[in-house]
């Protein structure tokens, strides 16, 4: 068995002349819960579709469980669970019908009891057709269908999109049930950073088709910092500090967003710049993500003309 469950090497995709994915090179080890985050249109869905062999790459390659994504065999697909964006299921089927349909593709692997338990837990009627379910309920069915075969790798494309807080919590609890089983790997894309923070141990940040971050969640949390400096006179015009992403100035204050800058370097710079005081600003993962993926340079506020 390979220890790398998912690997991409220079994976690139163009739609006509539009670059959707730019040389994505990542390795995801077995047992990892990887949050794949990025803004809308950043290339998350394209990357997932390429990994599952639904799209052909313009350049590069990818493997799932050691098998080329473009040549995924039925045996490999049987080991991979997939939850599509928007939970698109066959609308005319009832839960019982779709479970029968799905189970036919996982002989000896489908856990009917687990599926029924999950459906009961979510409080869904087995006789109801998929088309009569709300997005949240479809998400629950989708998750139960993906988890019941007990897949080695679960790939989910923005599974919590459009779900309310309560359903999202139930959904994540369902995911955690899988995570508790040893050796299971999950790749899930999301733009809800709270979800990522709750379950992921690794983070991939994609921006404009390019992977910007590929590290443990903890490393990312420690690396991106915001520090507020207070000056007794106007702050310096030129800021020269290692790892600077953005800065924001006011009359006597300066806010810096830094990546991978150590405490000593910050203290050193504060001293050399003549700051009277400085304080780290608390940021949650969402703040860090927004700061990290914001365009480089000085932050400007959107200002409606005339207001």
């Amino acid at each position, binding site marked *: 068995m390979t220890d790398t469950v998912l690997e991409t090497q220079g994976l690139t995709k163009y739609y006509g002349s539009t670059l959707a994915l730019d040389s994505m090179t990542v390795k995801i080890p077995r047992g990892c819960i990887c949050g794949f985050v990025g803004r809308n249109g950043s290339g998350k869905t394209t990357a997932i579709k390429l990994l599952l062999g*639904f799209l*052909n790459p313009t350049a590069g390659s990818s493997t799932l469980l050691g098998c080329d994504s473009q040549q995924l065999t*039925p*045996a490999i*697909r049987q080991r991979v669970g997939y939850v599509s964006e928007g939970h698109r*299921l066959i609308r005319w089927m009832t839960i019982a019908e779709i479970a029968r*349909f799905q189970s*036919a*593709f996982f*002989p000896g692997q489908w856990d009917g009891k687990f599926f029924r338990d999950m459906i009961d837990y979510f409080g869904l009627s087995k006789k109801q057709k998929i088309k009569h379910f709300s997005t949240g309920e479809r998400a629950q069915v989708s998750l139960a269908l993906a988890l019941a075969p007990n897949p080695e790798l679960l790939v989910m494309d923005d599974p919590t999109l459009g779900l309310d807080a309560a359903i999202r919590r139930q959904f994540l609890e369902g995911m955690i049930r899988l995570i508790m089983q040893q050796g299971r790997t999950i790749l899930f894309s999301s733009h809800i950073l709270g979800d990522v923070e709750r379950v992921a141990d690794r983070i991939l940040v994609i921006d404009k088709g390019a992977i910007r971050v590929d590290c443990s969640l903890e490393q990312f949390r420690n690396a991106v910092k915001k520090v507020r400096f207070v000056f007794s006179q106007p702050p310096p015009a030129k800021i020269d500090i290692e790892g600077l992403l953005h800065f924001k100035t006011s009359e006597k204050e300066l806010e810096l967003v830094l990546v991978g800058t150590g405490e000593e370097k910050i203290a050193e710079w504060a001293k050399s710049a003549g700051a009277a005081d400085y304080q780290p600003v608390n940021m949650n993962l969402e703040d860090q993500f927004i700061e990290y993926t914001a365009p480089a340079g000085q932050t400007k506020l959107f200002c409606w003309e005339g207001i």
Partner: protein
Amino acid sequence: MRFFALLKKELRECLPWAISAAAFLLILGSLRIWDHMQRDIGYQYRVFERYSEVYYYDLQTRPLGDLGLLLFMTAVGLGLALGVRQFWVADFTGTWGFILHRSTRRTTILTAKICAGLISLIVAIGLVWSYLYWRANLPDYSPVPLPKRCFIQGWLVGGVGLIFYLAVGLVGLSKAKWYTTKMMGLGFAIWIFVTLTQQWMLWWGFGTLVIGVVVLLYLMWEKFLNREF
């Protein structure tokens, strides 16, 4: 087991269209035959005796009357509906991902789709046509036994439905712009149909149909296996 699960799903999706087409053809076809029965059979015999051999075939097949047009319309209509249902709807509903991420090959998925379409066409058009032919051929209905050629012609007309089914499927799978090559499959189907109407010999007609089916199947196969979803 996997193939049958797919086939069952596809058949279930084709079922409403197949039932509607079969009911349409059966009801209107039966009405046509019943209408023929209302006429004086003895008079028809006398007319038959007066005419030369040139009109023999026409008179012989008179109980089926203009069923040919009805058969053609139903077969093409069902072919179009099935093609759209099986190859267009998944694009609109975004279910290709769910369908394709099966522990089976794309060829199996396509085979199940085409088998379901074929079964629907055979049952809704072929079997209903066979029933109408049998019924019109009963001694009480027809002044003279209907020729077998007429029966085979009916199946060939039904085969046009298969051509249009495959053509619409191909159009659905094509990602080209509609004003470029996307509609070429449909154009090819129309061309096959026109060619078919020019054939007097049944074998030529059958050959035209087979060529059309083989070309469209090959193109669909290529498209489905290499398409981006």
